[in-house]
């Protein structure tokens, strides 16, 4: 693109002041958004006295990992493991099936315009509306409190989203690029692997991240459809709220553990989430 963006003008007077002001605003916004995260982290490290102290303690006297130790000892971290399994497996399966379906919709116009709309409309149903019919069905199939139950449910729930997103990303790839690969000697599958997937990489990772996060955070179904065996971490967090007492330290510690995988996943994938991969394919 243009080199003009690279050659910045030197900063003089007004421009410099404006930049400083912008920077200050950015920092302020960052503080507002990061503060709850900070509070979550330090709460997980505080002692009980510090948690309930008034005025509040802004940082704990010592970094106390006792709460984490308790979570590990009691086996509560198992919920994180459950969440990981359920979210990962459902994401992978939904991505594979969804991308295949999206390709078919985008390239072969399967079902015309209406099928695609119908598919995304499935996503508009509020979960709470169908949770009890699903519950009864799951009882009947014997899927309550099982991996397979939640995984299938999340796949079904995420598929419309994956199909819709991937259809858009695939449609953005000029069909001639794919056809060019076909005449250059690719089978349909090779064209997908060597051309379509690399070109849709940004979209694939972005969609996968959101799909994973949905499954990771999902609460209503997990709450109703699990008991003890495959508790996911959002459900377990609620177990720490009690009528008599609420275990704030445990809530915070488990939440920290629940945040880290998503944080690292996004951090690692970030370089794939950069836009502009498909630039330069066509005439320009």
């Amino acid at each position, binding site marked *: 693109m243009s080199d003009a963006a690279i050659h910045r003008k030197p900063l003089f007077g007004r421009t410099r002041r404006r930049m400083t002001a912008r920077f200050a605003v950015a920092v302020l916004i960052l503080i507002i958004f990061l503060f709850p995260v900070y509070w979550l982290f330090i709460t997980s490290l505080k002692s009980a006295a510090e948690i309930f102290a008034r005025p509040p303690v802004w940082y704990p006297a010592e970094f106390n990992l006792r709460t984490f130790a308790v979570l590990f000892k009691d086996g509560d971290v198992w919920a994180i493991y459950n969440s990981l399994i359920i979210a990962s497996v459902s994401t992978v399966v939904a991505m594979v099936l969804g991308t295949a379906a999206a390709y078919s919709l985008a390239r072969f116009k399967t079902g015309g315009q209406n099928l695609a709309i119908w598919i995304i409309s499935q996503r508009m149903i509020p979960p709470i509306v169908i949770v009890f019919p699903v519950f009864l069905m799951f009882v009947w199939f014997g899927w309550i409190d099982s991996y397979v139950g939640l995984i299938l449910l999340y796949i079904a729930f995420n598929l419309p989203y994956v199909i819709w997103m991937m259809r858009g990303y695939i449609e953005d790839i000029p069909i001639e690029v794919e056809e060019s690969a076909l005449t250059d000697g690719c089978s349909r599958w090779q064209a997908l692997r060597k051309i379509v997937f690399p070109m849709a990489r940004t979209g694939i990772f972005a969609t996968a991240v959101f799909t994973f996060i949905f499954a990771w955070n999902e609460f209503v179904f997990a709450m109703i459809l699990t008991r003890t065996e495959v508790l996911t971490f959002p459900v377990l967090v609620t177990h720490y709220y009690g009528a008599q007492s609420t275990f704030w330290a445990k809530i915070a510690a488990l939440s920290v553990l629940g945040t880290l995988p998503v944080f690292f996943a996004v951090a690692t994938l970030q370089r794939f989430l950069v836009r502009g*991969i498909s630039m330069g394919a066509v005439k*320009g």
Partner: protein
Amino acid sequence: MAGLRLRGVHKFYGKVHAVRGIDLEIPDQGFTVLVGPSGCGKSTLLRMIAGLEVVDEGTVEVDGAVVNDMRPKDRDVAMVFQNYALYPHMSVFENIAFGLRMRKVPNAETRERVHRAAEMLGIPELLERMPRQLSGGQRQHVAMGRALVRDAKMYLFDEPLSNLDAQLRDEMRTEIKRLHQELRTTMIYVTHDQVEAMTLADRIVLLRDGVIEQEGDPLELYERPTNRFVAGFLGSPAMNFVPARIEAENGGLGVRLPDQTVLALPEGRRSAYADQVGKTILIGMRPEHMHRDREGEQRDGFGRISVTVEIVEPMGANTLINFHLGETSILARLDAYAAEQPGQKLDLLVDMNRAVLIDPESQRVI
């Protein structure tokens, strides 16, 4: 080698009947141009030859074998697309090498052939770049290189020059012609531009609304169009069509123009129209088939018209003169030197050997 043959080929897009029964034989090693106005089905036809589009009816045959159901990869064709369709995530080198890699050509040979193709197109310094770092013209060259590096049975081009600016387009046109003369392979070239068609083709196939209007070598179509559409499509500026009437004229035959001038038909053409006296026709005259009448001479086979110049457009190499014959606005292309003025009277000689007479009902040349 029998080359490529289409028999009764049809294509439907839903209700749109895009290709309506094409019978065509594409000679081996020739340069065939499919030309016609936008939407006439040229791309569709080319894509059916490449195997990118299903043939709804009829057959596509290569060397005598029906290939309707053969995958593009097995047809051994190389194709250049109008929008170039480069692989954006691969370097120029890998773009050009891709077709060879897919066909398992050894690495050393691939490298050599890619470099040779790049040399041929004058882009060896671009090989390490990514497509997004190239200008439009450079992308076009890469697209060409990607096809030329292949040792394909047929090379297909779908308006490969239409996105270039005029000068680059002229250069590339010459370049393509040179490549064809060097490589001597079968090339099928789609364009809506009649100049490209005329200059490049050994053989022109002129399409309209999914049917072939006429095919043949370029000058044959130019000099002997079979209908008004072909006559008007080829040539720039286009042929002038004037309503007229065939009349008997002191022993011979002539064509009476709206201004009552009668242009005598030359000896050789009279017999063909002997039974058409009194018939209303359109006479088609190309701009370059009208000349200044310098000495008032009577040249054989030429008819004289007297006109009033309205607009003068000097083009450098020649001059376009605009005037009216009756209701019809006419363009004549004259030699450059003399400077006519608007309003000036002018005598022109019309080459009656090359004028075409058209039946306005059927639009066919008679």
